[in-house]
């Protein structure tokens, strides 16, 4: 998933009050600056593994490896918990949903690293690289990316209606 991550992250931020209340941590308002910043940073955090690749510090295979694991999710949650429990909960939810969104890609997610190298994938679309115009263009030549990512924008619009946000105010 590429552009669809934006809609998914915004949708998660729109559910911030329900997520934080369900977890029993201080409430964060829907689509507040706090929820948007925390959710967007956490949701995109796994894809920051492209930075060391671009800098030449890691091979291309580093993409979708340790940053896309349950261990990484747990570590992020544990690191944030002493600072702000609400941020920790929102981050864990954002990371887990990032993995769900990426599960359709053929690259597969090594969720159980370092305990297992098994990669999980629904094989809905072929992965064509971690960045660049070709990866972007070729992703949208495939049907399921439109279905899943476009569907996320429809869900986000439904949330805007429920929360009375423009153009549904």
């Amino acid at each position, binding site marked *: 998933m590429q552009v669809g991550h934006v809609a998914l992250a915004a949708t998660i931020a729109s559910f911030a009050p329900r997520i934080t209340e369900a977890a029993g941590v201080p409430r964060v308002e829907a689509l507040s600056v706090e929820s948007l910043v925390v959710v967007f940073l956490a949701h995109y955090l796994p894809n920051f593994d492209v930075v060391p690749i671009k800098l030449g510090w890691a091979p291309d295979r580093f993409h979708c490896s340790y940053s896309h694991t349950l261990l990484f999710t747990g570590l992020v949650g544990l690191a944030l918990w002493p600072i702000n429990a609400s941020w920790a909960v929102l981050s864990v939810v954002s990371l887990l949903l990032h993995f769900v969104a990426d599960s359709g890609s053929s690259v597969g997610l090594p969720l159980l690293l370092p305990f297992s190298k098994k990669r999980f994938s629904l094989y809905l679309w072929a992965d064509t690289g971690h960045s660049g115009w070709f990866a972007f263009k*070729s992703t949208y030549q495939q*049907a399921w990316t439109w279905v*899943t990512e*476009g569907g996320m924008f*429809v869900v986000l619009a439904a949330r805007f209606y429920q929360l009375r946000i423009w153009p549904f105010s």
Partner: protein
Amino acid sequence: MFEYRRTPYLGLVYAALIGCAVVWLVELPDRPMSVGQVAVFYVLSYLPGLGLAMLGDPAAHRAKAEYLKVDYYAPRARPDSDSISRSPI
């Protein structure tokens, strides 16, 4: 991107179906949507609608099959690697 000319138009039909379904599901009785708001849903529904239409288009399947053949994460040859430096000029 499309082999059939009908694919983008079929997407419009699917968008109408998706848009109607979503409006029916989320619209509250005390807050009926205006025509413009329904249109927003219709326009956005074209994105997944087009995807559904592409599921029946061979071009999308061919693209996926072609891309699946390539490992885009395979190590690339670098100028300082043995294979490059040992190759005859």
